[in-house]
């Protein structure tokens, strides 16, 4: 018998009991759909993180101070840190970079008239910030080199802060009190949203030298920068820039590779870290998928056993008309596979549809992982074969005489 023909027979068997077939498939449908939706959700979340991180700036390398693994055992005193002047050194000596910027942050109370905002992140930075971080101003201007050279009391507000302090009135040109110092608002940033744990719109940007001057108490740390940002010209120069930076910064800090005293971070390494977090989630999903497929499979086995009993006479007749045991086995096996594939198909449709609906009407971003579709089908077919084998074999082993006598 041809495969197609047998499939046709199997299909007719299923069409006979539409409601029952559907109910049987339900376990599989829910399982497959859930897997596809959840994979889409996890992939969507991952893509969103990746997008956000990329929006920090393309080909960005962050240089952060790091404490040596053994705590303070190796070195006496505080760890060596990069200073403001080192930014110029990096700019000059490292090839293949498109920009360098630095940050030194502080947290202050911000006041305008009767409005007081507490615990506001004040970011001291340089003119290179906008290019490196791919972040622009909506009104006015950003910090300039001149601002830094003169340690001007100029401030650029995050969009949320501007809204909180001035409402819809123009912020540029107004005065804000940060800590005990009065600053002139020179610009308002474009909205950027929250990336990671940082709400970019709730920060205020001022010249880094003004931070040193007004907000750093320790005389020894007057020009220490918290973080240096370097942007490579392209993805291809990333590796070269990283190795140049490692060598140069070790030189500047007078450290060795055993305990360099700093660490380089790229978006890739952040994404990798995030991915490993979602991998745990994925493993959980795999278990959910496995359990629902097994439950669905047991449902299929159950209904196939019922079907074999109900159609004993038909089996006997087919045997009398010349169906070999393996023809019968094949028919029932294919019926189970057809059932599970149908379940898989409906599950995939429900899953893909559900993902789109989540994307459109839900607050979640979802991206359907298309490789999960053949995977779902394959798993469904495997479930059909595995759980259909026993009922099919039972059918094939029926004695035609007994089967024909069956009422």
């Amino acid at each position, binding site marked *: 018998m041809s495969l197609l023909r047998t499939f046709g027979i199997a299909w007719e068997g299923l069409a006979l009991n539409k409601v029952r077939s559907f109910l049987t498939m339900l376990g599989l449908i829910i399982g497959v759909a859930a897997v596809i939706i959840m994979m889409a959700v996890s992939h969507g979340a991952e893509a969103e993180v990746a997008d956000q991180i990329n929006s920090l700036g393309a080909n960005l390398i962050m240089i952060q101070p790091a404490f040596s693994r053994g705590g303070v055992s190796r070195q006496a005193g505080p760890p060596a840190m990069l200073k403001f002047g080192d930014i110029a050194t990096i700019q000059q000596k490292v090839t293949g970079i498109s920009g360098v910027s630095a940050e030194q942050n502080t947290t202050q109370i911000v006041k305008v008239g009767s409005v007081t905002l507490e615990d506001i992140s004040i970011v001291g930075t340089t003119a290179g910030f906008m290019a490196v971080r791919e972040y622009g101003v909506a009104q006015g201007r950003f910090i300039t080199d001149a601002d830094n050279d003169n340690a001007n009391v100029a401030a650029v507000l995050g969009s949320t802060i501007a809204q909180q302090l001035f409402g819809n009135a123009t912020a540029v040109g107004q005065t804000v009190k940060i800590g005990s110092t009065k600053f002139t608002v020179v610009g308002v940033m474009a909205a950027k949203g929250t990336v990671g744990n940082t709400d970019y719109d709730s920060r205020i940007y001022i010249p880094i030298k003004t931070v040193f001057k007004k907000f750093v108490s320790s005389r020894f740390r007057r020009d220490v920068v918290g973080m240096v940002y370097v942007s490579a010209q392209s993805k291809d120069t990333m590796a070269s820039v990283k190795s140049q930076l490692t060598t140069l910064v070790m030189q500047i800090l007078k450290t060795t590779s055993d305990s360099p005293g700093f660490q380089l971070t790229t978006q890739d390494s952040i994404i990798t870290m995030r991915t490993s977090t979602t991998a745990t989630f994925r493993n959980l999903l795999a278990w959910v998928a496995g359990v629902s497929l097994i439950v669905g499979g047991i449902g299929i086995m159950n209904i196939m056993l019922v079907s074999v009993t109900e159609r004993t006479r038909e089996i006997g007749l087919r045997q*009398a*008309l*010349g*169906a*070999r*045991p*393996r023809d019968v086995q094949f028919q029932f096996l294919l019926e189970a596979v057809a059932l599970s594939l149908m379940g898989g198909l409906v599950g995939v449709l429900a899953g893909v549809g559900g993902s789109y609906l989540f994307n459109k009407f839900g607050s979640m971003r979802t991206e359907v992982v298309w490789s999960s579709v053949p995977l779902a089908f394959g798993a469904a077919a495997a479930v059909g074969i595995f759980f259909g084998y026993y009922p099919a074999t039972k059918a094939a082993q029926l004695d*035609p005489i007994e089967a024909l006598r069956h009422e």
Partner: protein
Amino acid sequence: MTQMMTQTAPTEKPMRKLIEITNLTKVYGVGNVAVQALRGVNMTVEQGEFVAIMGSSGSGKSTLMNILGCLDRPTSGTYILDGEDVSRLSKNQLASVRNKKIGFVFQSYNLLPRFTAVKNVTLPMLYNGYARKSDKERTERAVTMLGSVGLGDRGRHKPNELSGGQQQRVAIARALVNTPSIILADEPTGNLDTRSSMEIIDLLHQLHEQGTTLVMVTHEVDIASRAGRVIYLQDGQIVSDRMDASRTAAAYGHTDGSVG
């Protein structure tokens, strides 16, 4: 009807042995509970014969029919069907023999209720060489067969839309569709009223006249009398084999209506 005449009338051709059974026994169970259903049956059916098998309940006629139909294998003895020893074949081989050489007609028709008459008739073709032919060819063949049993206009009907006699005609068309060597009919009129019974037996007789070999189990004397030859079974043995049904029945006290 002429297009289905694949064999010439038996009288015009030298006889050929289609069924040859020698010392056939069948024992069910083992040891003390063993039941001997057939105790050394010898029987020959020539091509083109119409044979009725009679016998009371427990006489072994069902067992004999099952073995003749290759649904069961004898415990000992040989069964040669159309020149091939089928008494020791495997299940798969028996299935193939049933498909190609035997056409079954059952008391309860055994049509698949969800299929139309045409689809029911195509069923045996799915398990033989016709499977390689197209759906269209199979359907055409089924329609032709339905026409030859007088149901040319009922092809699209499902079994529950047909009368008992019509259903049995569909079953006969199904039995003929693979041009088998022999038709085995097990109480073909058992579920039918007198008029339908007569129509069916007329149809079987017609097939016989066209050269088809038929073996039929029945317990009705007037049905058996339409066959050319009546074999009477008792306690697993053939006790009578003659050309006159009424005398056979009378000799063994067989009365109408007893359950076979």
